[in-house]
Every structure is written in C-alpha cells, then in structure tokens.
C-alpha cells in the first residue's frame, strides 16, 4: 500500500531504482522499529514521509563521497517560462533527470524545492554551509535546465 508512495519519494533521492528501494526498505525498517512512537491521532503519511526523508539524508551522508558533481554546459535560453512545453514532460523523465544529478546537488535540490526546507535547514541537515547549499541549489537547477533542454529538443 505504501510501496508506491514511498518509492515516489525515494526515487528523487537515489541514482537508480535499486538505490531508491534500498532507501525505502531502510525507511520501512525505521517505521517497524519506531512504530510505538507514532501518534495514532495523526495521519500516517506525513510521518512516513518524514522518516523517508531522514533516511535519504542518512543515505546521503553514507555515500556522499561516492561521486563527484557533474558538470553540464549551461545554455542561456532558459525554458522556465515555457509552461506549455514543460507540461509535456512525464514523471519518469523528471525522475530520470533528477537522478542524473550528483548526490550533493540532488539532495539540496530535493530538500529545498520539493520538501520546502530553508537553506539554513538544508545546511544543518547535510552538514554544509548555507553558502554551499545556495551554490549547490543553483548548480542543480542549471544542470536540470540543460537536461530539460536536451529532453525537449
């Protein structure tokens, strides 16, 4: 029941489906071990989502030295304003683009854009400076923009 929901979150934080499943399984284990602390009067999904995000952050710390940030050539003609074209991008392609980002860029992007963290919170969670968080977010967006451009052309 929560497999699809969990995967839709962890796929953003992983390089592959296998890695996403690994994060999800680790998240399920945390749920299993901490289910007594769950307040039954509150909805389950937000609690589950919080666990998965924390698990993904743990996963990032565990493997953060695994891969160097990728470099993409930035094109000046951005596509951010072309909503009609963007709506044609499907979920699979979005996930594929995010997964191509380096772990550092991907995690900062997800925490800031998807989860709504502030740079201060991102910096604290990932043990980096606020400046690094802002820089990584900027580079992540640039890289995604390049990838999006390639996808649409």
């Amino acid at each position, binding site marked *: 029941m929560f497999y699809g929901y969990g995967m*839709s979150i962890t796929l953003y934080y992983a390089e592959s489906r296998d890695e996403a499943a690994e994060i999800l399984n680790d998240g399920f284990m945390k749920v299993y071990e901490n289910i007594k602390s769950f307040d039954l009067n509150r909805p389950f999904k937000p609690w589950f989502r919080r666990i998965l995000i924390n698990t993904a952050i743990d996963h990032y710390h565990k493997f953060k030295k695994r891969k160097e940030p990728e470099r993409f050539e930035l094109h000046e003609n951005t596509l951010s304003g*072309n*909503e009609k074209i963007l709506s044609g991008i499907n979920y699979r392609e979005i996930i594929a683009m995010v997964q191509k980002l380096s772990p550092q860029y991907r995690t900062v992007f997800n925490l800031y854009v998807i989860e709504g*963290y502030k740079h201060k919170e991102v910096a604290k969670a990932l043990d980096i400076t606020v400046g690094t968080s802002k820089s990584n977010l900027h580079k992540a967006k640039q890289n*995604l*923009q390049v990838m999006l451009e390639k996808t649409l052309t």
Partner: protein
Amino acid sequence: MSEKKNNNDPFSELFKRDGAEYDIPYREADWLKLEKKLDLRDAKMAYRRKVAIITAAAFLIISFLGYFTYENYVNINQLNQVLEDQIATNDSAQDSNSSRENSTADHSQEGQANLTESSESNENIPTDLSDSRKTDEPDEPSTSLTNDLAAGLDDLDSEESGILACDSCLTSELSTQTITASLMQNVSDPVSGIAMIQFQMAATQKLPQFQFEGDEKAPNSGSGFSLSLMAAPDLSTIDGFSNFETPGYSVGLGVGYQINERMSVSTGMSRSVVRYQGTEGGYNPPDYLTRGVVPDRITGECILLDIPLTVKYNVLEFSRSRIFATAGVSSYIMLNEEYDFTYEDQYQEYNSYSYSGKTGTAHWMSNAGFSIGIEVDIHPNWSLRAEPQIKLPLRNVGISNVRLYSLGSFISLSYKL
C-alpha cells in the same frame, strides 16, 4: 522544517509533480531484500536475548558461589569467636580456681594424697594414651590433640584419676563439649576439677588448629590427580568478537594434576558444536570450494574435538573455595564441517551454496585460551567450578581456514583422586 514550498516558478513546480500520478510497479525483489533485513533484525534481537540470558545465568552462578564462599567465611569466623570466648572463659575460671587452691591448701594436700594413691593404681594410663596415639598416627589432627592432652597430663602429674574415662572420649569425640561432659562425670573433687579445666583448655586451644589444618590439607591430600566433567555454552565468531551466530555448546572430560598448593595442569577432551558467521577477511576457503571467488559471507557449523592443555593458578585461597586463573592452548580435531557461502552479485541478489563434509583434520595448538573462575569445595573430594573463558586464534582452523574466536563459561564438577 518549513511547510512553505520554495521556488514556486514553473520550473520548480515541474519537479514537484506528485509521484502518485505515476504508477510505480511493485517489485518482488524489493520485498525479498526487506525480508532479509527483517530476518537479520530478528536474529540480532534473538542473539541479544540469548546473551542477556547467558549473562544473567553466569551472574546467578557466580553470585551463588560467592554467597556460598561468604557464608563459609562467616561461619568460620563465628566458630573462631566461639572458641576464643570459650578460651577466655576458661582462663578466668583457671584464675579463680588457682585462688581457691591457694586458700584451701590443707584440703589440697589431702586430695594430693588421694591422687597419689590413685596414680599408683593407674600407672597404665600414660601407656594407654601412647597406644592410642600410635593407633591414631595416620590421623594428624587426632595425634595433635592427643599430644596436647598428654602434655596436659604431664603438667598435672598425679591428677589423672578424673581423666581415665577421657581416654575413650578423645578417640571417639573431639568436641570440647563432649570432653567437658565426660570430664564432669568423672570429677568429684576440686583438684580433679582443675585437671578438667586444664584439659579442656589444652583441647580447646588446639581445636581451631585441628579443624583448619584438616580443612586446608584436605584438597592436597591424595594422589594429586583429579577428574572433571565439563559443560559450557559456546559463542563463536570469525569477526573478532562480533557478529555472533546461535550459541553452540561444549561437553567433555578432563584430568588434572596438582603441581603444588597453588598450581596445577590439566588436559582433557571435549566435543564442541561451534556455530559462527562472518564477512570477508575472517576466512579463506580453498578454490575448489568457492569456484575461485572468495564469498562475501560465510556461515558455519562445525563439530569438533577440543583438546586443551591448561595451567591453572589459584590467585586467592579461602577455606573452602578459591579464585583462579588459567592459561593454555587448545588443539582442534574437526569431525564435521558445514558451511554456507554467500555472494553478492551486481544486482545485490544473494546467491549461496553449501558444503558439508566429515573432514577429520587436526589443528594442533590452534587457539589460546584464558579464563578466570571460582572453585568451591562441596565435599572433601568434590568441587564445583564456574569458569568464564575466552579463546583467541593462533592459526586458522577448518577447511575454510577460519580464525575462530570463542567465548564461553565452563561449569565443571571435579573429583580428587
């Protein structure tokens, strides 16, 4: 965490698209991986429970033996106190009798005459005592006591009249109370009363020595050899005292020899069931077992004969118990070996295969063993030991060449030959 979503521009909104829109198909392999994690967690929980139970059991045994030793110590102290009190009482009684003897000199002289007469008619008494001493020669404490009493006789010269019946009492009953009672039955005059007190003193002053000399010498008596029956749980690993498998066990027989009062050597043979698991680095199986690829994980269950050679040293000695430490080497003869080899391929799927065989290989002096423990005498010839021990690898053992670390706690029952 802030609830406010950042960057509400179309570009960011694109990436915030709800994943629920996309149907992510379920994959059986993901569940299998989770199942393995759950199994591993259950195994860890079960292991923690077992360790807790074993620790509690070891604690209880050591507490029991400690309490037993303490009780012994307290009893001996109480006995010492009673004896000291009795000696003090006798001293004061002797003093008062001496005063009375001085004040009734005439009466004593009359009594002396009677005693001289009695002495002449009972000249055989010292001979009887000597005879008795000869017959009791193997019994050191009795000899000691008889000597003391004989010395008392010498001191009293002709005051033996009231002691005649005590000869039998010496050989049959050694307690002060009995001596006193016997003497009281045969003493009818004040002079004999003095003799009674002096004899009682001689006996009571020596009784503590008799009792404790007897207790201390008992363990060293006999041939010096001992036999023991041993049993222990076995926690083994090849990852350096971590990652333990389900506990095995060890049961065996041993023989020991007491070199001196504190040191002894022992050997024996025990049949052990050893279970362990480990990750790469703790083993090196031959290529024909592993197809040339070292497994990522190994799980083993071996039945082996453990032949230890151990030196034991008594660190602390009590009247009926002792704290000891041992060090030694163990040789293993592998009777049967079973292994599961596990590999992790590029898809993180686990493929494993098994090996089982009656190998019969011997690995001499493959492990060093150390232990500390407590031994309690439950009988002059029987003793009980609790002995937590640790074994460290000196060389690889088994067909998989594992470096075997073991923890256990031997409980053994020994009989002194």
